[in-house]
C-alpha cells in the first residue's frame, strides 16, 4: 500500500537540515565518548587475540574522528555482521 492510498488527514512537516558547518570531525571527545572508548578497549582486551589488537589506547584518542576510527576497528571484530553492505553497481 502506498502512502497516498491511505485514508485520513496527512500533515506534512518540513524538517530543516543542519548547515555543512555543523560537522566537526576534530571536536574534542566528550566524557561519554571517552567512557565508550574505555568500554571498547575493555572488550578488545577481553575478546580480541593479542596479534589482532589495534594498539591504540583510549587516553591517546582526542577527537571524534579518531574515536570513531578506533571504535569502528574494534566493533568490526566484535560484530562483523554490522559491516555496511556495499552498494551494488547497476550493470550496463
Amino acid at each position, binding site marked *: *500500500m502506498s*502512502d497516498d492510498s*491511505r*485514508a*485520513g*488527514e*496527512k*500533515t*506534512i*512537516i*518540513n*524538517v*530543516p*537540515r*543542519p548547515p555543512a558547518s*555543523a*560537522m*566537526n*570531525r576534530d*571536536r574534542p*571527545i*566528550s*566524557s*561519554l*565518548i571517552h*567512557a*565508550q572508548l*574505555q*568500554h*571498547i578497549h*575493555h*572488550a578488545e582486551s*577481553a*575478546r580480541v587475540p593479542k596479534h589482532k589488537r589495534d594498539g591504540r589506547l583510549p587516553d591517546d584518542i582526542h577527537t*571524534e*574522528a579518531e*574515536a*570513531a*576510527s578506533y*571504535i*569502528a576497528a*574494534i*566493533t*568490526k571484530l*566484535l*560484530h562483523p*555482521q*554490522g*559491516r*555496511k*553492505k*556495499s552498494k551494488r553497481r547497476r550493470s550496463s
Partner: protein
Amino acid sequence: MPPGLDALKHIVVLMMENRSFDHMLGSLKAVNPQIDGVDGTQSNPDTQGNKVFVQPLAEFQSQLDPDPDHHFPAVDQQIFNGDQSNPRVANMQGFVKSYYQQQQDLAHSQKIMYYFPQDKLPVLTSLATNFAVFNRWFASIPGPTICNRAFAHYGTSFGQVGMNVFYPQGKSIYERLEDAGHTAKLYYFDQASSTMEVVNLLQHQPQLFGTYDQFLADCKSGKLSDYSFIEPNYTDHDNEDGAQLACDQHPDHNIQAGEIYIASVYNAIRSNPVLWASTALLVVYDEHGGIFDHVPPPACTPDGHSAGPADTGLNFTFNFDRLGVRVPAILISPWVPKGTVVGSDRVFEHASIPATVTKKFIGNYTASTAREQNAQTFLDLLSLDAPRTDYLSFNL
C-alpha cells in the same frame, strides 16, 4: 484487552542523549497548559545572587560548550543547590551555579536556562502534541549516561552511578525475551558509532545487534523484532556513505541532525501500514545533560543497591532512592488519542521500559528488581477503540 493492546506486536524505543524536558518541550506549555513546561517565571540564582529566568533562546549548536557537567556531584548541586544536609529539599536552584564552575563566566552560565521555542523543533514538538507526552518521565539516576541507559536494558544499574565498566548480575530485557521465545534487537547507527552496551551485550551476545540500515530494512520488510532499541550516532565521522553528523543531540552536537533522525525512525515505521498499526514507538532521552528543568525529581523505590562516597564523589551513600532530572518522553502510536498529556500523578523512569516490555511479551517475571517491579508501564495509553487515520509525514 483494549484493541490497541491486542493489535500491538512491536515496541520500539529510541533513546536520545542529554537534554531536559523544559529545554526541549517546555515551550509547549503555551500550546497546552496541561503540559508542565515553562512560562518565563522559572528561574535560578547565578553566583552573584541575581535571578536568571528561563528564555526561549536555545540554539542548535555552539551554545552549551563546554558540555554541561552531569556527573553525580554536579547533578546533586543542580537539584539541591549545594545543600548536602539531611534531610534536604530538592529545589532545582543549582543549575546556573553548577555550569558557572566550568568556565567562571557569568554570562555563559546563564545559557543553561535557555529552552527551544516550539518552531525550532518541528519534529519533537509535533510528535508531542499529536501523540502522548509524559509530564513526569525522569532519568533513573541523578547522574550520567551509562548508568541511566543500564536501567533501560536491565531495570537497574547494579549499583553504578557513573560511566565505569560493570558486569550485570541479572538478565537484560533482550535475554529475557529470547528465553521466552520472543525476538529483540539493539540497533546501533554504524560500526564507527557502535553501542554504549559494549561490555555486557556486544562482546557476549553480538547476535542481538543490528545497524540502523538494518532497522530501516526490517521496517520495510516487516521483519522487525518484537522489541527494538535504537541508538543514535554519537560522533561526527565518515563512513562508506560519506560524512555522518552525530545525531544524538548530546551537547555540542547539532540538534537538527537529531530531529532528522527521530523523524526518520518515525517515517520508517509509519511507511509500512501493517507495522504502523501494530507498533508503539517511545522517544525518550537518557538524562538531562546538566540542563535546567523545573520539576524536582521524586523519591523512588530503591533497587537494592547502594553507592558509597567513593562512587558518588560526595560525603554520603546513595541508596538509589531518588530519580534523576526529568527528560522528554513521547509515546507514538495510531492507537494513542491525539494530544494526550500523561499527567503529573504518574511517574515514569527508564525502568518503565523493561517493565512495560516484560509485561507485554512475557507476563509474570519475578527476577526483576523491586525498582522495575514498581515502575509504571505505559501501554494503557493505547486506548482508542480504532486506530487513527490521521498522521504526520516528515519531509526530510
